[in-house]
């Protein structure tokens, strides 16, 4: 259990930073960003963030390394086929579920 006061302290800081990032440009920055470098950085960062968050964490997101790996493989294939986000997620989850059923049956 997280202590309630600690939770609210972190929540306020978290929400505050997230909010300021959205608010300050809306208030201060009414001109287009001219720097090509900054625009490029802002273009790449979201993809880099999501990549770093996914690998290797995805391998430990389920009960077994094997089920997670196969789930990732299915997600990659479905994404390459440009399936919808929800389809990719359902495909990966179903794969993990089936693989874990098999693992539990065999063990």
């Amino acid at each position, binding site marked *: 259990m*997280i202590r309630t006061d*600690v939770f609210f*302290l*972190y*929540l306020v800081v*978290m*929400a505050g*930073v*997230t*909010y300021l*990032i*959205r*608010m*300050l*440009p*809306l*208030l201060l*920055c*009414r*001109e*287009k960003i001219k720097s090509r*470098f900054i*625009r*490029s*950085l*802002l*273009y*790449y*960062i*979201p*993809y*880099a*963030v*999501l*990549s*770093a*968050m*996914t*690998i*290797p*964490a*995805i391998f430990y*997101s*389920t*009960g077994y390394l094997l*089920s997670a790996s196969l789930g*990732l493989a299915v*997600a*990659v294939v479905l*994404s*390459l086929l*440009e399936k919808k*986000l*929800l389809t*990719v*997620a359902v495909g*990966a*989850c179903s794969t*993990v579920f089936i693989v*874990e059923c098999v693992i539990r049956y065999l063990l």
Partner: protein
Amino acid sequence: MGYLSVSFAFGIFAVGAGMTVWQAILVSLANVTSAGQLAGVPIITGGLPLIEMVLTQFVINLRYSLMSVSVSQKMSPKVKVWHRIVVAFGVTDEIFGVAISQKDELETPYLLGLMATPILGWTLGTALGALAGDILPGIVVSALGIALYAMFVAIIIPPAKKDHPVAFCCLLAMALSAAFRYIPFLSSVSSGISIIICALVSGLLFAWIAPIPEEKGSEGKDRADEEGTVAT
């Protein structure tokens, strides 16, 4: 539908990480940002330093500042400062996507209407996911644990397929992230800080060696729109 399913997955994740249902709901209501929340929850449950929360949220949510800049330019000059301050809370991917596609200048009532549904959907999805995580059997929760990451894969891969620098940037970020996990000395760095370093190093390197073409500014927005239907 997009944010309902992502927030559902987040709810399961948050409860699995040790949060109560109410805490998960409050995190969603106060932040309305998927990747930021996913990185923030372990910082709270793990009792990591507050400064790490500040830095992590700053880097992960940096993209919102770009969206805010675009939305700001679309807003009518008549919009009052305190209206801007309220509307800022709702700058998420999908709101950005819709707002930016409007031809007319944006007025406050329109933006407030645009904000309401995603914020409600996001919070409701989290509540359902958190409750489901409490009730459902372990094997189902285990299977749903991969959902958010699978969605991230689905967001990264289509643009990486078309734009090779994006693909290499992603691969570099993944390799660095894996290094932080498995190399003994580096693995002492906490998860939030490691994400920041991986993302900044990859982003800075590719902004330097493969800057986006001048005219690509609008294409970047189109991408954000596509992404916008799915991720908050």
